[in-house]
């Protein structure tokens, strides 16, 4: 196995040399303008979340609050019915455990689709894709009935257990695409040395997939963190609910108070943002073995 850090170093210096100073500045300006555009709705969200109630109806949505206040944040964080700490840990559980389970099993399932020959592969793959094609609206109630029959309503089982069974077509499909791009020389050689498929998967394929595993982990985490419908349908007990449901109920109690709603959204956004920020080096610095010859 060849170390890749050296390669990355080479690559980065090369790019740095290639990038002329003017190009560099231009690039930076483009990035900055794009970022401003992308942050436009977020700016409104932050401004609204900091405006005291008196300013929300009466000032332009573009204005920065004249007397910024954290009152909406305090309301969210201290509301005894919301019970922020408890809901936060519920949310953390619901967004991490199923994500880890589904990313790992999705990789397992994607591996044979990408790199092994077996009976019925291409048609089974179409079956896999077809599970994404039926709108969830019509399977909502049958799923609920299924989970109720299993006695899983008002527990975390509907979120955790299915995650261990393949992690969904989207994840499997993306991993399959990634795995198909990995050159075959390495595992071919390993196969000749007598390595089993399990070893090849674990030692060669999985480490190569780190960028895409990280991507999927972020998707899964974000999805779990912001899930509204799942907990809403499957859980009854307010103490088991996640933040998103809690915030929704807080909003309803305060009847669409914009500031409160935006503060709630910001509070959910911050941990997701931090996770993304922490994870992103894995998107970029996967242990790239590709092309190593």
């Amino acid at each position: 196995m060849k170390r890749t850090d050296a390669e990355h170093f080479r690559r980065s210096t090369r790019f740095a040399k290639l990038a002329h100073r003017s190009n560099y500045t231009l690039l930076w300006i483009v990035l900055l303008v794009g970022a401003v555009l992308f942050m436009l709705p977020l700016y409104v969200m932050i401004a609204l979340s900091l405006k005291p109630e008196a300013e929300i109806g009466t000032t332009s949505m573009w204005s920065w609050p004249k007397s910024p206040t954290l009152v909406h944040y305090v309301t969210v964080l201290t509301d005894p019915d919301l019970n922020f700490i408890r809901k936060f840990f519920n949310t953390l559980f619901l967004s991490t455990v199923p994500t880890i389970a589904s990313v790992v099993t999705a990789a397992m399932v994607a591996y044979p689709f990408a790199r092994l020959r077996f009976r019925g592969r291409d048609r089974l793959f179409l079956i896999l894709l077809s599970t994404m094609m039926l709108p969830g609206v019509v399977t909502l109630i049958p799923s609920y009935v299924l989970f109720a029959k299993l006695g899983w309503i008002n527990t975390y089982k509907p979120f955790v257990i299915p995650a261990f069974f393949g992690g969904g077509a989207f994840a499997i499909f993306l991993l399959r695409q990634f795995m198909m791009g990995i050159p075959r020389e390495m595992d071919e050689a390993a196969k000749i040395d007598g390595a089993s498929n399990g070893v090849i998967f674990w030692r060669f394929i999985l480490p190569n997939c780190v960028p895409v595993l990280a991507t999927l982990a972020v998707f899964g985490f974000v999805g779990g963190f912001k899930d509204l419908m799942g907990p809403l349908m499957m859980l009854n007990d307010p103490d088991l609910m996640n933040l998103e449901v809690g915030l929704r109920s807080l909003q309803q109690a305060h009847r669409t108070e914009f500031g409160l709603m935006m503060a709630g959204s910001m509070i959910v956004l911050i941990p997701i943002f931090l996770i993304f920020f922490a994870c992103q080096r894995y998107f970029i610095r996967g242990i790239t073995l590709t092309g190593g010859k």
Partner: protein
Amino acid sequence: MTRRLLVLLTFLLGACLSVAQPVTIRYACTAGGDNLKQLNRLVKQFESEFPNIRVKVEPIVDNYENKLLSMLAARVSPDVAVLNPNRFPMFASRDALKPLDDFADLGGPEVDLKGRYPNIVKAFQYDGKQYAVPRDVACSAYIYYNKRLFREAGIPYPDGSWTWDTKVRPELREKDFMWVVSQLTLRKPNIRKPYQYGLATAWPQLWMETLLTSSNVRMWDNDERPTKLFLDDPKVVDVFQFASDCLNKFRWMPSSTDITLGSGSTMQDEFRKGTVAMLQSGAWEVKDMRAKMKDDWDIAQFPTFARGEAPYLPGEGAGLGIFASTEHPQEAWEWVKWYCGPKGLIPMAQSGESQPSIRALALEPGIWLPKTDATGAARMPENLRITDEMAMRVRTRQLPDWFTNGVASDLQGSYYAVLSGEKTAEEVLKKLQEEEPAKLELALSRVEAPDYPFGIGVAVAVLLVAALLGWIYAPEYGRKLSREEKTESRSAYLFLIPWLIGLAFTAGPMIYSFLLSFAESDIIQTPKWRGIGNYADALNPRIDDTLYVSLRQTFYFAGLSVPLGMIAALLLSLLLNQKVKGVPLFRALYYLPSLASAVAMSLIWMRLFDKDQGVINLFLYGADGQSGFLHLGPVLSNMLGTPGEPINWLGSTKTVIPAFVIMGLWGAGGGTIIFLAGLQAISVSYYEAATLDGANNWRRFRYVTLPMLTPYIFFSLITGVIGALQVFGQSFVITQGGPDRATNFMVVWLYQKAFGELKMGYASALAWILFVVILAFTLLQLAAAKKWVYYEGDLK
């Protein structure tokens, strides 16, 4: 020692037996937050009065009825639930609710039905039986008015003698509501858009509903079993057109953008700001108004119709019903009686939350009405007493299901087209009157369907699975495998085990919905057999052309959003893959909009696209509404055929889908990180080789990056098309299918069929039609992929 222990044990056992095990009642409600605090206090109080009953509150924050339906289907429904008078018949008509007449003391003094507002009591009757005890009554036609603006206009405060007609009657002056509205609408010279509007309604449809209810125009012959429609009757057309003119022609009310946005909060804000002089809404605003406005406001009656007979008003309320499946009817009944009795109602009324259904409580000062010695905001509104008379005028309509979901729902759907000013009332109503009778006849002629043949259903399911297995394995059946291939195949299936087991969770419900697509199913009762009827109805444009409209709009959206979204994601990923200072932060910033709460973002987007104040139009038209960047706005307005008018992005059928596509681009961050992951897999050696060959930047992109990214482009294409054809969220939150069905995408429509109209069989058929469409696209793409997708580690 042993004897002592034995005695103690016997004693303990006796103690246990003598205290009866408390019974737990599950109570489902819509409450949250503050209401919940109050509710929990009340539950404690109730439990101390009834020590053998425990009440477990299950607040359902959103999708209230869907969850109740799911619970019913799974037979885990709560014992007691809050019900809405317009929606409870869907449970009552299907025997899911227990008739309260079963309890001997329904007519007794404790329940005191006679002391409650008769209309709301009647509203909870179905087929002559009482299904809920009303808790509160909520007329939605109070006029909140800003006293200062009345004084400034020199108009006396309303005294309850207002009347209205479909024209202004200046000779009546302040006795004519519309004259008052017109006088309170103020403009600067030469600017059509008023800086102060005379009137606004809490949500758009309310205006139309109020005018129709209070003018009492006859649109069909009777409510029990409507057989004749008079939709294009001149009186009906007159009221419809007037509702639209108030918004579009006279501009007494905020413009059609606000109408299509359906966001309640703006209007209340505008009223508090003083840009709207009067606000029509329900009594539920009282609490907020007290808290946020000082004391220079009050409420007034909605005017009576000048030509009218019975002055009805729209409204609703809430009541408590008991599910038929309950195992503890008596305990459930105790809770219903207690909570809808004075002990439950008084705290709710005192907080200004809702008007109690018991009339005596609504009239006694210090409960619903302010205390006689109250001061400041607490004594507002001074006219609260009028709510008694208004509650007496509330009328809720009970129409047969097939009518509500057919004609009545199409009629409501037409409100948008009329209120947005895009079509005249006459056009819309003439067309409805032409089309609807045929549908009505069909609904009336529909005979009772036979029971669903479950045996055949199961057999079909088994056959289906067998056919799939055959399709998967038959082509390779009998092909001899080498030993090596056999081991490879065997280990492949070992890897697939989790997915194959998990398939049960997805395939089970899928097969179920397929079988249901041949049924008439309301989720609650056992399904009836419809054969291919659902498919035939959906595909027949004479019965319903919605499928074609809906597919067309869905394709339009997908055709614009998928390529644009992919190009944006690809460009962003190339940009964010550069070695530039701060690029990790930029990546996070570009991804942020895709992370933020969809509902909060939608609310912000509505404002960004606002016709008058939105930043998009500010950019296009400039601050003066004339110039703007490169005169883009006026040019676009001319192209759209509305010269001189700023684009009504979300309110016009022509621009709403492009607006959705633009909003979608802010979510490109998700696709970007997929491409970013793909870019990492490209070996540097290829670039080095290309550079050695003298390739420039463009050629390196074209011949190295692009081919290596094709697996991800293919992935984005497949999942993008699947996602776009199932687009739901934006329309559901922002436009609810409107304007004029323009965003009535397939899934939005079938959601409405499934949960709005309880036609799960029909919805399933629609879902499977969409499935076939998506499958066809996917197969085409899979076939084409062989030509352009390059896999470095391909097997062949």
